[in-house]
């Protein structure tokens, strides 16, 4: 039946950098109630770590759409493109 979103992402050609191109400001995240990033990310890459209370982003599956950065009106998300050679490589586009 329906594929899980992580299965869909796994179909893509991707080359992951060792460091994240998305950096969260945990102080801002701690004060955020809406956590829009979780709902808007097409890759479902954002989650709340219940143990630490910190927001986590699985940058390795990033589709580089930019939605999270725009949806986070509190400005917690420092987002840049992955370096040349890295990230998703669309074969169809």
């Amino acid at each position, binding site marked *: 039946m*329906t*594929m899980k*979103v992580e299965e*869909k*992402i796994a*179909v*893509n050609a991707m080359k992951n950098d060792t460091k994240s191109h998305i950096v969260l400001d945990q102080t801002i995240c701690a004060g955020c109630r*809406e956590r*829009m990033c*979780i*709902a*808007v*990310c*097409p*890759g*479902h890459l954002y989650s709340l770590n219940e143990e630490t209370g910190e927001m986590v982003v699985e940058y390795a599956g990033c*589709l*580089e*759409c*930019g*939605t999270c950065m*725009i*949806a986070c*009106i509190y400005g917690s998300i420092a987002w*840049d*493109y*992955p*370096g*040349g*050679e890295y*990230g*998703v*490589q*669309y*074969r*169809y*586009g």
Partner: protein
Amino acid sequence: MDKIDAIVVGGGLAGLCAAYRLADAGRQVILLERGDAPGSKNVTGGRIYVDPVRAYLPEIIDSAPFERHVVREMITILDEGSALQFEYGNERWRREPFMSHTVLRAKFDSWLADQASAKGAFVIPKKKVDDLLWEDGRVAGIRSGTEEIGAHVVIAADGALSFLTQKAGLRQPHKPEDLAVAIKEIYQLDEKTIEERFGLGPDEGAAGLFMGSVTRGMFGGGFLYTNQDTLSLGLVVGIGSLIHDTGGFDAPGLMDGFIERPEVQRWVRGGELKEYSAHVISEAGIGAVPKLYTGGMLVAGDAAGFALNLGLTVRGMEFAIASGVMAADTVVEALDGNDVSETSLSRYEKRLRESFVLPDMETFRHSRDVLDRQRFFTVYPRFMCELFDELFTVGAKPKEGLYRTAKRVAKKHVLNMETLKDLLAARKL
């Protein structure tokens, strides 16, 4: 600093067309693309209208690697558990010159990069541009990592997010209300299956739009394009709508809901998922177009906010091609006159005004305000579906007259002040 004539940032349609045109005019041009190859970071809906761009790429447009020429438009209006579908086709669309083609951009952009390279442009992939270089208050090149390259002019064709436009002070940070997120899936099916399933001849294609409950009342809709042996299926949802929605829907869940609809499954069943992609797209029309030039720099394509959603037609690629070419022509003229000042480069905007680009953007200035009304995605689709439901239904009781049925359903949904307001707003379209 040594300077080359021009640097183009971004190997999409606007950037590649600019590089092609500059090289064709005998200018030195380097195009920097952050992906493995031009097109590899691209997410397109899938259709190019040819007539608007023919004049800008006269030598090569006819040999472009399109997928299928569109001969049929399919509209599907969805409510929960029901849908109304209609099609428009025209025999004329089946004959050359074709009006529009479906396209896959990894293939298309690689081809365009080859054309630009053949003219003498240097297309350099895997190169991310990090910042602009400045000299005497003007843009004077770019920085990529530790490497600096000087140029008389930089053409920013770095896509809908366009960090360069912001770094150059040409626009404010993006607002959620101005952008939508498009999620797209590519399914492989063999050519014969596509042609039989959609009732198409060889190389003929169909384009589909889906509106109504697929976006759960949020601004947006679905799309479908037939490629040679794949289908492009996608959903567009306003980011502003998503963050203000209280229904608890998330973007991947909306996409799943869309793909699972029987009205979508009938086309895609048996297909193998080959790619899952997403990107933001400008929905604000001319309202979000930044300042288009400054000393030493021009902005083209999606970076300039050149995208138009008119509900039934969604356009962006024609604007990218035309603006890329006009940016290049402006630069050639400026370099010939040895003047890349802001005043000299302001002629770019004049060119855009004399073309279809800015007039189209201007004409449809209010389209987002009109379309971004919740009732378009909730009440009207429901009204349409319920009306046909009642007309088609035969039950045990005596059937009501058709006019009475229509009047009753209309009264329930649309014969009210709200509809009148929407109609008045629609006059601006």
